[in-house]
Each structure stands twice: as structure tokens, then as C-alpha cells.
């Protein structure tokens, strides 16, 4: 397996958000996590990426046979974990190309590969840009600065393609995307799918899952996975909403 989350509990400012998550992801699998607002979806993504605002109070996360929670965020990235941010940060003054070159070469170094020289790097970048139907003027622009919502998300997927991760977490990558951008992003992901790479897709809506068909769908509610199924579960959620599930887990309601 790539990732094994056991009984993970995490809090922010002493408020418990994750209340015992269990999830196992094997190589090549695509998992989707759905759930209403405030259920803890983005917290899970942030904890996995190593954001220090969150405190893990109990449980464990094993990533490629290592204790993930023990690794610094940059080491997680170099080991092949990628988070596509829901709200990518704008960084004025750092060009996308320079940033990516530093990033890709750090990751390559960690994996025992030669860093790319300028020419090789440009070649690889151009190829991935085409994949995401992005203009190469992207590269000279400051990272995410003044990018539209769609451009930011495409830039995230572009970075994902460049960094060649084994596990990609897409945190509401579909939010703020129009239908064309959604298709392009999904195609980008689909082209990267293979028997080695795994994905954890966090989304509100079933729409993205029309394009990226998941192997498993989990419903996160009040910090716990309350139901797991296949892609049909997503369709059912789209049709019926989350309320019917809430009533299926009365114990949680009572706790609340």
C-alpha cells in the first residue's frame, strides 16, 4: 500500500476536527472523499501535507512504509506526496519557471536523479504545458499572482505533472472551475493515472468524478468516514444529498 491512515485524530486551536479517520490507499487507486461543509475534508488534506497549524492528537499515518507524520513537509513532497491546494498562494516576484525548477530539482536530487539543466527543464515543462493546454507565458509570470481561479488550479495540476508524485491529494480542485477548465484538469489527471500513481480527490460535488472515475468513494462527516462505496455512491449522494446518510448514523448525531 501507499498510504495507511489509522484512527487519525487532529485538532486546530484545541477544537477536534478529525475524529478517527481510517483509510488505506493502494498503488494505482483513485479514492474520492466527499462530504458536507465543515466535515474535515480540507483538514485531512492539510494534515497529510504537514501544515503545522493542525495538531495530530492520536492515530498514525504510514506513507511508503514510513511514519508520514514524522516527516517535514518538504520531505513528504520529495518522497512523492503532492497536495493540490484549494487556494494556491500568490507569490509575487517568484517566477513560475524558477520556482518549479528549484522544486523539481530538489525532488530529483532526493530520488537520486541528476538535476535538470536549463534546456532539459524547458523541454519537460513545455511538454506538460501542452498537456494542460497552458500558454508558456505562464512560466515567466509570478507564481499564481493575478491568476484566475481556473489558471491557479491548472497551475497546480501542471506542478503535479512536473513533480511526478506517487500520491496526489486534490483538495477541491474543481471548485471555481468552469466546465472547460474542469475537463482540462481532469484530462491532465487521467493522463497521469497508472498502476503506480494513486490519487485522493477531495470534492463537494460528483461533477468532477464524471471525468475522473474513482475506484472508491468515501463520505466524511463530522470528522469520520461514515460510508465507503464505489463511484455509484457519488451518484447517489448527488441525487439524495447527505441527509439520508446523517440519519443512517444516529450515533454521531447524538454525540454532536
Amino acid at each position, binding site marked *: 500500500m501507499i498510504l495507511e491512515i489509522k484512527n487519525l485524530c487532529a485538532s486546530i486551536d484545541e477544537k477536534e476536527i478529525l475524529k478517527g479517520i481510517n483509510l488505506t490507499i493502494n498503488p494505482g487507486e483513485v479514492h474520492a472523499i466527499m462530504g458536507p461543509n465543515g466535515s474535515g475534508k480540507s483538514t485531512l488534506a492539510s494534515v497529510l501535507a504537514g501544515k503545522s497549524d493542525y495538531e495530530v492528537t492520536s492515530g498514525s499515518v504510514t506513507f511508503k512504509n514510513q511514519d508520514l507524520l514524522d516527516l517535514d513537509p*518538504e520531505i513528504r513532497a520529495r518522497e512523492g506526496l503532492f497536495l493540490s491546494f484549494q487556494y494556491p498562494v500568490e507569490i509575487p516576484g517568484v517566477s513560475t519557471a524558477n520556482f518549479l525548477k528549484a522544486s523539481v530539482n530538489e525532488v530529483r536530487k532526493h530520488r537520486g536523479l541528476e538535476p535538470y539543466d536549463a534546456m532539459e527543464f524547458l523541454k519537460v515543462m513545455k511538454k506538460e504545458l501542452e498537456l494542460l493546454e497552458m500558454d508558456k507565458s505562464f512560466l515567466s509570470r509570478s507564481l499564481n499572482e493575478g491568476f484566475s481561479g481556473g489558471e491557479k488550479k491548472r497551475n497546480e495540476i501542471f506542478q503535479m505533472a512536473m513533480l511526478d508524485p506517487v500520491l496526489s491529494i486534490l483538495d477541491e480542485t474543481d471548485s471555481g472551475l468552469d466546465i472547460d477548465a474542469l475537463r482540462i484538469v481532469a484530462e491532465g489527471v487521467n493522463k497521469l493515472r497508472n498502476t503506480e500513481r494513486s490519487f485522493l480527490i477531495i470534492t463537494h460535488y460528483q461533477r468532477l468524478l464524471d471525468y475522473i472515475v474513482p475506484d472508491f468513494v468515501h463520505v466524511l462527516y463530522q470528522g469520520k468516514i461514515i460510508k465507503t462505496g464505489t463511484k455509484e455512491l457519488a451518484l447517489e449522494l448527488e441525487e439524495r444529498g447527505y441527509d439520508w446518510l446523517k440519519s443512517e448514523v444516529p450515533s454521531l448525531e447524538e454525540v454532536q
Partner: protein
Amino acid sequence: MSVDSFVQNFKNTFETAQKALNGSSKFYPNVVRANAFESFLKSGIPTTKNEEWKYVNLFPFFSIDFQFSASQVISNEFAIFIKDSIESINPDVALVLVNGKILPQLCKNLDSYEGKILGLDQYYNEHPDEFTTLFHSLQLSPNTIFENVSTALSFDGFVVQYDKNVVTEKPLFLLNFIDTTNNHIVIPTRYIVKAEKLSQASIIEQTLTFGPNTSLSIATSEVFVDEQANVTIVKLQNDKKESIVLDSMSIAQKSSSTVTSTTVSYGSSLIRNNHRAVHNGSNVHTNMFGLAIAQDKQVIDNHTEIDHATAHCSSTESYKHILSDSSTVVFNGKVYVREQAQKTNAYQSNKTILLSDTATINSKPQLEIFADDVKCSHGATCGGIDEEAIFYLRSRGISTKDAMSMLTLAFAEDVIMKIENESVRTRIEEDFLTLLSNRTK
């Protein structure tokens, strides 16, 4: 005590020079020098009670025994230092000063340079009327203090003259080498830039100290920019730690002229810049950019002044500071908009990143507006590096340290990008990254 010895040494030096004048004390440039000499004796070294100097106590910096006379012999070691430095800077055109004097044999391609270099006295002999309107004409008493030191001792001062319509291709590097092998030494420099109508020129200044003792560079320049002329000045203040820089530049601009000054400071133990521009005509534009990177106990003090004395002119001022350790930075930005200066458009911004809890920034925008139909804005910010941005970069495999460097450089980049000369720009970026990576976490 040693402040007194500075004044005493200055007095002796001037009086010795005065005796050597052989009766030419009525010669106009010497009259100006003598007046400046008297003025400095009157003012002395300013204390923190002087409003213009309130943030920086100069006295500790003057506690060492500075000598005014440098050895005229260039040692082998110093000669090698000069040669290596020039090779590494690799200027197309260079005016080289050694201990305050122009050394023609070290200058580079001045003969084919479009601008002319003349001694102050020579310039007066050739253009007496013009000279009296230029030399020391932009100094404002009582704020003029160290300017008087360099004017009084301006026997080696010079004029860089750009005739009407002259368009220079390459920047002029003004390289000021100081040898401190024998003692702590004061080197006053004094020059005038005269850019006539429609001329275009670019000057890059740098002081390089050699030897174990401390150098004190007291530099004063006046820059006269005539109608439709365009002058660019870069001051690269990256001298070694055993140095002090007191730099004063006064710019006077006529109609439709543009001046862009960019000052990048990250060397020396103390840097004080007094940079002023006064508008005298319409459609004048002044750009003043600055970047200061202060570490350890460094003190960098930028005093700027833009005097909108005439209507329909504009100015853009942007200063950025990055402070770590126990450094101190001052930004005092005066903008005057005189009563008749209607339709002025003045913009000022100064932004600071504090990388330590013990660094100090004193930021003082000072706008005095007497006209009523003007657009003036100013802003000052101060803070740390954005934690969200650091996490974003770390989540892409970049270490915290590299992320900090990248973000700090990004903060400084828009000022660095104002410098047209690519080799100077590259040099600043490289030095910058070295400085940041040497920083103890």
C-alpha cells in the same frame, strides 16, 4: 574626544591645503571651499538632537582615529586588489579614483566615452559663469553638514559633462578605491554631473575598501539634468564591513527630464544617504528606488527628499528593507509639493521585512503639500515573511531556508529589476543569496 580629533584633523588638512594655494584663495572654487570649511566648523558632527540625524548616533562611529591624508604610494597588494576588482566588475567604461584622486592610467575607455571628465577648477576656468550656478548650489543650510566636508576638500573634485544631444551607450562606472593599510582614513569625494538638453547617460557608483582599517567615504554629488535629458544613477553600496559611507546626492531637473536613481545597500557598518531631487520645470519625472539589506549591527539610513517646486511633474519612490539580527534601518522620505506645483503626481512606498525580533526600522514618510490639485500617495508596511507562502514552497519540496531566500529575494526583486545593467543585477542577486544563506537560523 575623537569627534574632536576628527574636526581637528579636518581643520589641519584644510589649512595645509590652503597654504599650498599660493595666493589663489580669491579663486572662486577656493572661496566656495573656504565657506564650506567654515560652515562645517560651525555645525560640527551632528548629534541625535538634530532632527535630520535623530535615529542614528554617529558618535560611536567616530570613536576611531580617522586620518585625512592617504599614502600616495600604491602598494603591490593594493594594486592587485584594484586590478582584480576591476576585472571582476568588468566595466566597459570606468572612471577610477584611488584614495579620492582620479588615476588616469587605471581608467577604462574614457577617451572614447561620450561624456567628458574635467577637474572642478578646470571647469571653472573654461565656464566660469556656468560653474557658479552649479558648484555647491544645491546645498541647503542648515542641513548641509558632511557635504561641507567634501566641498571644502574638493581639490580633486570633477565634473562629468554630457553635451547637448549626447547619448551614451554604455554606463560609466565610477569606482572609488580606498586603501586603509596604514590607518583609518577619510576619503571625501566631490563631483558634478551636468547633463545638457536631450542627453542620455547612466552612471554606476561603487566604493571598494582595501586593508584592515576603516574607511570613511564622504561623497557629495550634484546632478544637473537639463530639458529632456535622461540620467540614470545606480549606487551599489556593498563595501566591506570596515567602512562607513556618508553619501549625499542632490539632483536638479529641468522640463521634461527624467532621473532614475537606484541605491542598493548591503555593505559597510554605517550607510547614510541624503538623496534629494528638486524640480525646476514642467513634465519632470523622478524615480528614486532603494533596497537595503541589513545584518548584524549594521545601520542603513536613507533620507530622501523630492521637492515638487513646479507644476505638472511626477515622482515615484519605492524603498524596500530587509532586516535581520540587531540591524537598524531608517527611511525618512520627504515630499514637498509647493503652492505653485499643481497637478503634481507623487507616489511613495516603503516596505520592510523584519527577520528578527531585535532589528529596528524607523520609517517616516513626510509629505508637505501646499498645492490643492495634486495626487500624492504614500504607504509603509512592516512585517515578517508570509507563513502561508513558506508552507506552499515547502509542500513542493523546497526547504524552509531556501523558501525564505526565495521569498526574500522576490520581495527585493522589483527594486533590483530597476537596474538596467545586467552584470550589476546578477551580482546583487548572487550576493543577496549568499547573505541570506549565511544567515544563522
